[in-house]
């Protein structure tokens, strides 16, 4: 098991926002967590990334406890978070943003090689490599955010709603890129409000509701699940 989250409770100040969350991701898998606004998806990923501390529970990555580590230490372990809202470095160029993605030592050595691979995956970024990130279109910015996340050659890539705020055509493009990444062996933990698309490409999925995991199963299985169809697919 690459990532094991065991029974974590997370609070926002006095308010509990995650309740005994447990899930896991195996090497090479694409796991999707779906849920509506405020379900706690972002909070879950931030907790794994070390941005928030769980009050109890364990997070085990690659056989080691990572609960309690600082974000930069988690990054070193091989986890890459493509955060909600992308969080690009607005005044840096596309290329500089990508180079920052390869900040950890292990990635720095293979920086030029990885850059080449990433440009093959997202040719548009190569065309724009000297453009300042804040001037990118929404779709390009999302591509850059994912590409930057790949630059560290992560063992686990976590994507927080990569389709948010994009036009339908671009949404499909983003999901196609994610599938491509999966094909080349990247392990992915995807968080999505777009339940249909998120589960369609997933090996396995979890449904998060009000800070609790209420359903889990194979992606295709969940897609035809009665409850999921009623609550999220409006069928």
């Amino acid at each position, binding site marked *: 098991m690459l990532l094991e989250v065991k029974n974590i409770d997370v609070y926002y100040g006095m308010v509990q926002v995650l309740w005994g969350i447990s899930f896991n991701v195996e090497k090479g898998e694409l796991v999707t967590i779906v849920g509506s606004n405020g379900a706690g998806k972002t909070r879950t990923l931030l907790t794994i*990334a070390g*941005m928030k501390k769980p009050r109890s529970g364990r997070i085990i990555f690659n056989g080691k406890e990572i609960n309690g580590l*600082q*974000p*930069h230490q988690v*990054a*070193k372990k091989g986890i*890459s*978070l493509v*955060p909600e809202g992308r*969080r*690009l*470095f*607005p*005044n*840096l160029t596309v290329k*500089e*943003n990508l*180079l*920052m*993605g390869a*900040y*950890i030592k292990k990635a720095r050595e293979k920086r030029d090689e990885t850059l080449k691979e990433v440009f093959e995956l997202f040719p548009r970024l190569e065309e724009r490599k000297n453009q300042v990130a804040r001037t990118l279109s929404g779709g390009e910015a999302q591509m850059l955010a994912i590409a*930057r996340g790949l630059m*560290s050659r992560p063992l686990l890539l976590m994507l927080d709603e990569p389709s948010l705020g994009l036009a339908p055509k671009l949404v499909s493009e983003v999901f196609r890129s994610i599938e491509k990444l999966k094909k080349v062996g990247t392990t992915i933990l995807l968080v999505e409000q777009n339940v249909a698309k998120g589960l369609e490409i997933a090996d396995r999925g979890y449904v998060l509701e009000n800070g609790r995991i209420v359903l889990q199963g194979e992606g295709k299985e969940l897609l035809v699940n009665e409850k999921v169809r009623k609550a999220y697919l409006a069928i």
Partner: protein
Amino acid sequence: MFVSLNLLLQNIANGLLIGCVYALVAMGLALQFGVMNVINFAHGEFVMLAMYITFFLSFSLGIPGELTLLFTFPIYFVFGYVVYKLVIDKVIDAPAVSQIGITIGLLILLQNLALAAWKAEPKAVQSTFLTGKINLGSVVVPVSRLVTAVVSVVVLFLLNWVLNKTYFGVSVRATSDDMRAAALMGVNVRRMYAVVFGLGCSIIAIAAAFIMTFQQVNPLAGLTWGLLSWVIVAMGGLGGVTGVLASGLILGVAEGLEITFWDPRASTAIIYLIFILVLWFKPKGLFGRR
């Protein structure tokens, strides 16, 4: 009022030369403020202390003031690093009032220490290689001031190069843009802050070593340097190195004009006046970004 053209040219030349070192001193602050958004009211006192250390080393080692840089540059890096860890780090996420309060405390502390250690009468370095004058037509330029200005500009552009062309520079700018995103990339943000704070202080040390070749230092000298630096940061600090240099030159020349047409003792008032004017008409600075 009758003013000779000579005097005017001389004062403008003086202003341009001193403006370069104003910019260098302010660059230390601009770097720190730009990257970690911390409000440091003790910046001027850091300059004052560096000037004293220059005096002290020059005196006790018997070396020219400008050569003390070999020691003060690394000493001041460590000084900045430690001050960050002991003081600034504790208020880095705190509201502005706490940062102002704690750094004003630092200001008073350093002033008092300087007063206790070196008494109130001004100190000057006894030896420097930078003696003599150069005549440019009717304008007379002391070598010490000329070299100081040249060094200041060179250091500013060196820093510019580091920030724009090296990987360290990219990571500094990235942290400045979005420290949380930088942390996700693996940047140890707190350590980066300490390093940048140290670097800002090293820049002060360079400036101080050269300022002492033509100026004296007293325990209150920091106040003007602090004010100057904040005015420059407000005017051009976020426009990068060129913004800072231009702002430094503007202040230097403004002072020169003030001295020409009015009373030299009011030159600090002019700096303050410019500060007010900038806040009124260009609250985002003359070379704004952000």
